[in-house]
C-alpha cells in the first residue's frame, strides 16, 4: 500500500489539491484584499490584491467610540469583551454541567435515563430561529434582555446538551477497568472519577469546550435578536451593522471580519495538540 505514486499521479493529485485550496481560500483572500484597500467602491476583479493599500479601515473599526451618558467608550473593545465573556461563560457552563451529567449517563443505571436522553436530544431538533421569539419574550420577562447573562443562558441551552452527548461517548469509551483498578487501589468512587476518568477524558473535554466557545463566539441570530444596544453587541452583530440597508461598508466589514477571526485562529493553534486523539490508548490492552 505504501507504493510511491508516479510523477503523473503526483501532479494530478497536487493539481486537485491546489484547486481545492484555491476554492476554499479565494473568498478569504477577497476579504483580506478588501480590508486593506483604499476608499473606492469594490469592483469585480479576478485577483484579490488590495488597491491603494491602507490601514484606515482597521483603525476605523478598532477605534470607533460611542458616548454613553457622560463617558466615551471604545465600542469595539467593549464588543470584543462581550463576545469573549459570553463565549467563555458558555463554554464553561456547557462543560461544567455536562461533565457530571455525561459521566452519570455513561456509568450508572437509573430510572428515566433513556427517556431523559431522548428528550434532551429532542430539544436540539428545533432551529434557533424557531426559538428566537419565545426566548426574547422570556428574557424580557426576566429582565435579561440586552445582557450578557441572558445570552449565555440561551447559548448554554444548546451547548450543554451538545457537550453531554459528546462527553457521554467519551466516558463510555474509557474502560471501566481503570476506575475499578483505582477503587481497588484505595480510591473512593469520586476519587476514581476525579483522578482517573477525568484526566483520561481531558483532551476530549478541551475539544468540547472549544466547540462550545466557537459556536457562541460566532452565533449571530440570537445575539441580533436579544441585544438592542450597540455597547452590548457581540462581534458578529457589529459586523452585520456595517451592512446597512442603504449603505454597505464592505471595507469595514472585511477589516472587522479579519480581526474577529484572530482569536479563533489562535485558539485552534493552541488546542490542536488536544485535537489529536488517542491519549487513552495504552492504558489497557490494544
Amino acid at each position, binding site marked *: 500500500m505504501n507504493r510511491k505514486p508516479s510523477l503523473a499521479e503526483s501532479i494530478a493529485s497536487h493539481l486537485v489539491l491546489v484547486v481545492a485550496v484555491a476554492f476554499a481560500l479565494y473568498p478569504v483572500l477577497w476579504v483580506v484584499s478588501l480590508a486593506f484597500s483604499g476608499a473606492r467602491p469594490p469592483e469585480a476583479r479576478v485577483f484579490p490584491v488590495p488597491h491603494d493599500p491602507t490601514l484606515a479601515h482597521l483603525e476605523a473599526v478598532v477605534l470607533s467610540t460611542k458616548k454613553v451618558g457622560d463617558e466615551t467608550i471604545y465600542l469595539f473593545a467593549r464588543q470584543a469583551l462581550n463576545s469573549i465573556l459570553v463565549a467563555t461563560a458558555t463554554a464553561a457552563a456547557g462543560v461544567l454541567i455536562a461533565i457530571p451529567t455525561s459521566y452519570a449517563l455513561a456509568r450508572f443505571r437509573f430510572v428515566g435515563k433513556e427517556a431523559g436522553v431522548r428528550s434532551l436530544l429532542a430539544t436540539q431538533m428545533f432551529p434557533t430561529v424557531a426559538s428566537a421569539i419565545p426566548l426574547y419574550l422570556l428574557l424580557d420577562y426576566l429582565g435579561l434582555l440586552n445582557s450578557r447573562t441572558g445570552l449565555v443562558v440561551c447559548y448554554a441551552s444548546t451547548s450543554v446538551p451538545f457537550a453531554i452527548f459528546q462527553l457521554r461517548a467519551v466516558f463510555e469509551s474509557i474502560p471501566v*477497568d481503570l476506575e475499578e483498578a483505582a477503587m481497588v487501589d484505595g480510591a473512593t468512587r469520586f476519587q476514581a472519577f476525579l483522578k482517573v476518568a477525568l484526566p*483520561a477524558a481531558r483532551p476530549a473535554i478541551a475539544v468540547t469546550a472549544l466547540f462550545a466557545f466557537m459556536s457562541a463566539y460566532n452565533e449571530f441570530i440570537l445575539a441580533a435578536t436579544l441585544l438592542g444596544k450597540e455597547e452590548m453587541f457581540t462581534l458578529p452583530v457589529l459586523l452585520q451593522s456595517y451592512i446597512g440597508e442603504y449603505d454597505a461598508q464592505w471595507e469595514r466589514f472585511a477589516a472587522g471580519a479579519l480581526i474577529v477571526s484572530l482569536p479563533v485562529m489562535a485558539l485552534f493553534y493552541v488546542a490542536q495538540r488536544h485535537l489529536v486523539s488517542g491519549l487513552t490508548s495504552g492504558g489497557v490492552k490494544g
Partner: protein
Amino acid sequence: MASVKVTGLNKRFGDTHVLKGVSVEVPDGAFAVLVGPSGCGKSTLLRLLAGLEEADEGHIFLGDRDVTRLEPRERDIAMVFQSYALYPHLTVRENLAFGLKLRKTPAAEIDKRLGEASEMLGLGPLLDRYPKALSGGQRQRVAMGRAIVRRAQLFLFDEPLSNLDAALRAQVRVDIRKLHDRLGATSVYVTHDQVEAMTLADVLFVLNKGVVEQAGPPLEIYAHPRTKFVAGFLGSPAMNFLEARLEQRDGQWMAALGRDARGVQVALDAEAFGEELQAGRRVMLGVRPHDVELSQDGSGAALEVSIVEALGVESLAYGTLAGAHFVARLEPTAKVGKGETVRILFRHVHLFDADTGLSLRAPAKKA
C-alpha cells in the same frame, strides 16, 4: 496476609443466576486458582472478592474480618486486571505509586517499595514512560508491580496472561509462581487455561454454571475427578467418554461399550467402585488419551484411526471407537497410519453416572 473464606455466595444479574451458593476456602499464603469455562462465574466470584460487585447472599471473610459489605478500598486487596488497567495519563512510576499516595504513605516509604518492586520485576528503565510506550509484556509487569507495592492482604488475578503470546505466557506463568513463593501472599487467580490452573495452583477450584464442582490440589482433582465435567475439563487432549452398561460375568464386573450386546467389554476393578456397581446401570466410561496402549495380541477395543498427529514426543491418534469420537496417545514410535484400525487397551478408566455425571469411584481415596 490472610486466609479467604467464602460461604454460601449467591449473585444474580437480573434473571441470570451467576453464582449459586459458592463456598470457597483458601488457606493463608496459598495460591488458589479458579478455573472453568467462560460464563461459569469465576470472574464474578473474583469481582465479589474485590468488592467490585455486591453479593446478594453469603459472606466473604478475609482473615477473620467480614468484608462482604465493605468498599474495595476498605478490603486491603490488590488486583491485576486482564486489561492491566494502567492509568494512561500517568507514568509507570506514578502508576505504581497511585495507591500508596491515596493511602497517604510517606514519600520515603513509597520510594523504597517502588525500588523493591521495580528491582523484582525489572521495571527500572521503564519508570518514566507512559503505558502507551510499553509492550504487552511490559504492561503486564507494571500491572503486577502496582499490586506488589501495595503489600495487600490478598492478591487477585483476573486472567492476567490472556493478552500475551504463547511464549511470553509460559515465561510469565513461571514468574508469577516465583513471585508468589517469594512474597508468600495469599492469591486468587482466575483463568480458563487448564495449564495455568494445573501449574500455578496450590488449591484448585473447578467452577461450572455457578457452582464449585470440585476443589482440592490440582493433581488430586486430575487423578480423581468427582464429575464428568471436571474430568472432561482438565487434561489435554480431553478425556474420552464412551457410553456403556455395567454387567457382571463370572464374578467379574464389566462395562459393555456401545448400545448393542456385541460391543467391546472392559474389565473393571470392583474394589475401586464398590457398591456403585449395579448390573444394568448406564454409565459413561471415561478414558484419558494417556491411559491407552496398543494391544499386542489382538484383544481390546477397535479404534478406526482417521488422523494421526505426530508431535515428536508423542503421537495422537484421532478416530472412532464403539461409535464415539476417541483420541489415543501413542508412543512416537508407533506405526499407525490414517485409515487403519488398531486394537487398544485401557490402562485406567473412570466411571460416571450417565444421568448425574457423578463419579462412581468410591470416595475412600479422598483424603
